[in-house]
């Protein structure tokens, strides 16, 4: 299709032949300008996000969870927001965690995100999470299928030989970390939270059956994982930017917490939020801007369709 319109074109044809650069420019403007405005938009968290928050808040303070991280900066806009939400909650509840990765870039990306959340905590005079004592990196595993089977079957053997570096010494065996104190099997972890941008979601739920699974996935993976959530294969789901914003709102308001902005749920009792803490993050920063981009998409689709109908009408008229 030609990008340029010609004087002979009918309105219908013109509407169908907008140059692509004009769409690109409008998209850049609409995804940039609202970022400066710091807008706030209302939101109603979906059930899957509420369950995610309820489950993670039900993890006893001071206990431990396993974290699977399989994202890189290619999905930073969504996955990093999800990871930060998870880290903030875990750190506020003093929950220790061990993380493993199925992508070569992922271990460093996770360490960088932890460093960022730690910086936030230090700025607010809160205790930072210390490597090895509060969390431990289990590194990268090229074969996700076999590793997930091994985690379910014999967690200690699956992670044997892995080392991580504490703050004030050289690398040590991960089993010397307080995170693994008393751990005999995967069941000694309260749950597994997986932040993923690839097919490791199915690899995980097909193989890890002994502990509840919580998934944080990218937008494109939401419909597939909604299916697993509906069949109770995962107990909570945060999907894409909407999931991040849902969780940030839940961190602010809690569930069934009486007040003007109460987030109701018939499945949960009162689950507290973290009022006064730093709850806004990438979800709050990006979600309003997403409205403008989506609006542009709707307008673009409608314009194309209106153009098509007008052109058809015109053609019919011409034929008559």
């Amino acid at each position: 299709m030609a990008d340029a319109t010609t004087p002979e074109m009918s309105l219908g044809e013109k509407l169908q032949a907008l140059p692509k650069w004009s769409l690109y420019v409008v998209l850049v403007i609409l995804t940039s300008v609202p970022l400066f405005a710091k807008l706030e938009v209302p939101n109603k968290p979906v059930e899957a996000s509420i369950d995610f928050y309820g489950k993670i808040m039900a993890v006893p303070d001071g206990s431990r969870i396993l974290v699977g991280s399989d994202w890189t900066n290619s999905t930073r806009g969504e996955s990093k927001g999800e990871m930060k939400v998870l880290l903030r909650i875990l750190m506020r509840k003093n929950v220790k965690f061990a993380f493993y990765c199925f992508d070569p870039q992922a271990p460093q990306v996770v360490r960088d995100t932890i460093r960022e959340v730690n910086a936030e905590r230090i700025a607010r005079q809160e205790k930072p999470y210390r490597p090895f004592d509060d969390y431990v990196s289990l590194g990268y595993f090229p074969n996700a299928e076999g590793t997930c089977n091994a985690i379910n079957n014999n967690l200690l053997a699956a992670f044997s030989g892995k080392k991580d570096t504490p703050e004030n010494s050289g690398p040590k065996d991960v089993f010397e970390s307080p995170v693994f104190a008393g751990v005999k099997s995967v069941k000694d972890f309260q749950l597994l939270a997986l932040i993923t941008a690839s097919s490791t979601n199915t690899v995980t739920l097909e193989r890890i059956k002994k502990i509840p699974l919580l998934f944080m996935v990218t937008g494109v993976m939401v419909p597939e994982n909604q299916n697993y959530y509906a069949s109770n294969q995962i107990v909570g789901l945060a999907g894409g930017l909407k999931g991040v914003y849902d969780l940030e709102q839940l961190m602010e308001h809690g569930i069934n917490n009486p007040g003007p902005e109460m987030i109701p749920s018939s499945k949960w009792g009162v689950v507290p939020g973290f009022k006064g803490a730093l709850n806004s993050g990438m979800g709050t920063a990006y979600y309003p801007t997403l409205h403008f981009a989506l609006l542009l998409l709707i307008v673009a689709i409608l314009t194309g369709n209106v153009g098509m109908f007008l052109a058809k009408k015109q053609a019919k008229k011409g034929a008559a």
Partner: protein
Amino acid sequence: MDYTFIKMTLGVLATVGLYSVLYRENKFYRFWEHVFLGLASGWALVILWTETLKSTWWDKMLGATNNSGQASVMGYWAYAALLPIGMMGYFVFSKKHNWISRIPIGIILGMYSGQQIQVWWNRFGPQIDNSIKPILPTSTASFFKPGTSGLAPDAVAKINSTVYPSQAITNIIFVVTLLSVMSYFLFSFDIKSKMLKNTTTLGRWLLMIGFGAIFGSTVMMRFTLLIDRMYFIWIEWFKMLVLRQPG
């Protein structure tokens, strides 16, 4: 000029360089594209040893000793056999012996396929179980499920456990959708039965609703990734670093 400024400015330059292809293919884009490919494969080479082979192969093969010279981890020599097996993969570049490269690939594929029997049920068993839904109402006191706002928990639980006619219809739609979409997938050959033909046609229509949802979610993801880049350029770099204003 501090290090953070240099680092982020380079990141912005690289981002703009890659975006320049949206206008047209150009040398500036090609330069950054090759930097990207080089860095990505170089980093994989770093991780190959530091996060994988060192701990899972080398250390296990050689074992370790503690500060007093006593064995803290025993070394297992059988791991040495994995080196020649791994090297077999590199025969893919040999014209004469490239079949040897299929041995390590065969091991990986064999393990993958051997797991399929186990994982199939783990993945689909709960879904099959969840798809068997009641399609007959258990109460006709009301066509629609009554509202539960302000009711006592017992009353809410009772309403939630009752299948009202509207719920039964919803369940029928669920089951019909599932079966017709499956029939569209499974009976993709030439069908003689008119009923089956109609079912697969219905399946195709309902499938479109599923694809519509996938499209909606995909759009959310792709736009979010773009918003993130714009945030990086305009807020993190331009506003916070260049203009020195709070984010």
